[in-house]
């Protein structure tokens, strides 16, 4: 029997361990490669654009003289866009997610809607631009205003918010809902006092990441006709506007080298806004998870 065991088993421990180490190495290389590209990009952008970023750059309007040009109107436009899009998209997205997870009957229609929302998340952004142009700019006669742009962006990120919120809501264990119902809570009390607070971290993180995606988008806003040259501050939702990515795109497309440096400076500002949004998302997730675990 002992002799049999030696022939029936071939553990090949060294070989299995070697494969394991090789695989671990592969994953490390993939990680480092991604980070290296990102760092190279950051160094390149900051090298070109870092020098551009000063007080004037932030407070001046765009100009045909590179030394005077700034992105004040574009930065303000992006901030307006961020706030308006959040106001529109957040309640709609969370509302739809709550309905789908907590209220909708589990039938083919619900599943059909869920599948299509997931599909919408993959539709190219320029398509949303065309929809915004036809629906908000022309039919609703909102013109090329901030609000038309924000509504278009809200449509674009709505699927992302719905999907992220649904995931977060589904991650709340049923035992929490049962605990609430067993105390005589109604469905909406259970949703508002138990499910949403427990899912809050995931919902907010998903929303902020979706918003970060929105402020980096150019195509839908170009499609609805956002201007590239704005020499005044947007002061209300009905104002004409431009945003950082459009301003950057505009500068890059000009022939003079000075404008390319300005574009790099614009990218620096855009990256800072994006990183800020992402760190807020991380912070929110950290805070809320600490509270709920």
């Amino acid at each position, binding site marked *: 029997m002992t002799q049999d065991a030696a022939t029936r088993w071939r553990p090949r421990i060294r070989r299995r361990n070697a494969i394991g180490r090789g695989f671990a190495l592969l994953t490390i290389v993939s990680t480092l490669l991604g980070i290296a590209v990102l760092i190279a990009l950051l160094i390149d952008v900051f090298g070109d654009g870092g020098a551009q970023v000063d007080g004037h750059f932030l407070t001046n309007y765009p100009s045909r003289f590179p030394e005077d040009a700034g992105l004040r109107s574009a930065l303000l436009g992006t901030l307006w866009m961020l706030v308006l899009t959040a106001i529109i998209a957040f309640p709609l997205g969370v509302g739809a997610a709550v309905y789908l997870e907590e209220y909708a*009957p*589990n039938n083919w229609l619900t599943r059909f809607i869920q599948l299509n929302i997931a599909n919408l998340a993959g539709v190219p952004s320029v398509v949303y631009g065309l929809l915004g142009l036809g629906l908000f700019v022309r039919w609703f006669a909102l013109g090329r205003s901030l609000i038309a742009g924000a509504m278009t962006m809200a449509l674009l990120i709505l699927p992302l918010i719905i999907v992220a919120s649904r995931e977060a809501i589904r991650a709340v*264990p*049923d*035992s*929490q*809902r*049962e*605990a*609430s*119902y*067993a*105390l*005589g*809570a*109604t469905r909406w*009390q259970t949703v508002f*006092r*138990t499910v949403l*607070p*427990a899912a809050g971290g995931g919902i907010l993180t998903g929303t902020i990441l979706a918003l970060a995606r929105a402020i980096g988008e150019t195509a839908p806003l170009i499609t609805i006709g956002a201007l590239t040259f704005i020499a005044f501050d947007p002061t209300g939702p009905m104002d004409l506007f431009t945003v950082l990515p459009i301003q950057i795109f505009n500068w890059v497309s000009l022939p003079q080298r000075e404008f390319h440096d300005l574009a790099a400076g614009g990218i620096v500002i855009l990256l800072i806004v994006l990183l800020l949004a992402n760190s807020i998302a991380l912070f929110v997730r950290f805070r809320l998870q600490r*509270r*709920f*675990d």
Partner: protein
Amino acid sequence: MEANPTGTRKPDVAASPSANDAAQANGPAKPDVLVTEDLKFWYGKMRALSGISLKIPQHEVMAIIGPSGCGKSTYLRCLNRMNDLIASARVEGRVIFDGEDIYARNVDPVQMRRRIGMVFQKPNPFPKSIYDNVAYGPKVNGYRGSMDDLVEHSLRQAALWDEVKDDLKKSGLELSGGQQQRLCIARALAVEPDVILMDEPCSALDPIATTRIEDLIRELRENYTIVIVTHNMQQAARVSDRTAFFMVDEQSSGTLVEVDETQRLFTAPSDQRTEDYITGRFG
């Protein structure tokens, strides 16, 4: 089914053939708080309960024992309509509470659940402070009195007050498993229910925490009617006044074999299957 005029009638008048008639003939009859009449239950097409008729007397502990899959938890969850949350669930028969069928069209399950509380198998405190866990039920039910007093009273009843009184702002999830389960009991008590349903409340706890919960159950019997599902026969023997033994029938549907005073059921069961089970011959 006999007619059920709403309101005035005493619940124990809703008589139906039941295995515990004999048992009740002996002791001084306590009014029945919960009576199920021919209760049947389906998950989709699968029948999980085949006509359970059982009377649960006031201020007693009723233990429900039986092998896995015999429908004892399903039965318990029918008593406060927790199974409503399962889309494919279907119920037939009646559950009479306070003279009314809780499955009647005019009964609001939300209102009924306040009076029939539940403690679950795994402690499930909310990810909120100890105070807010206990105050949750009173808040959703529009409690107007002093919340501080109610929270303290509930925690005292659940024998948890002395351990947490200086730390009410601490998250309920930071407590030990046994403390969490007592917090869940305090939470259930805070809405001042008549009945507390306990679904294997000690199965996730260590022996010391289990003993504390068992002591607590015996104390709570003074003021509450308790129905406890347990897979642990010793526990049923220790804490309950009356025990119901469930088994699966030929269609693998849960059925009530026998219900009797706990001492009698464990010493002189009238059904051979009960004897086989409690002597460990199966299950």
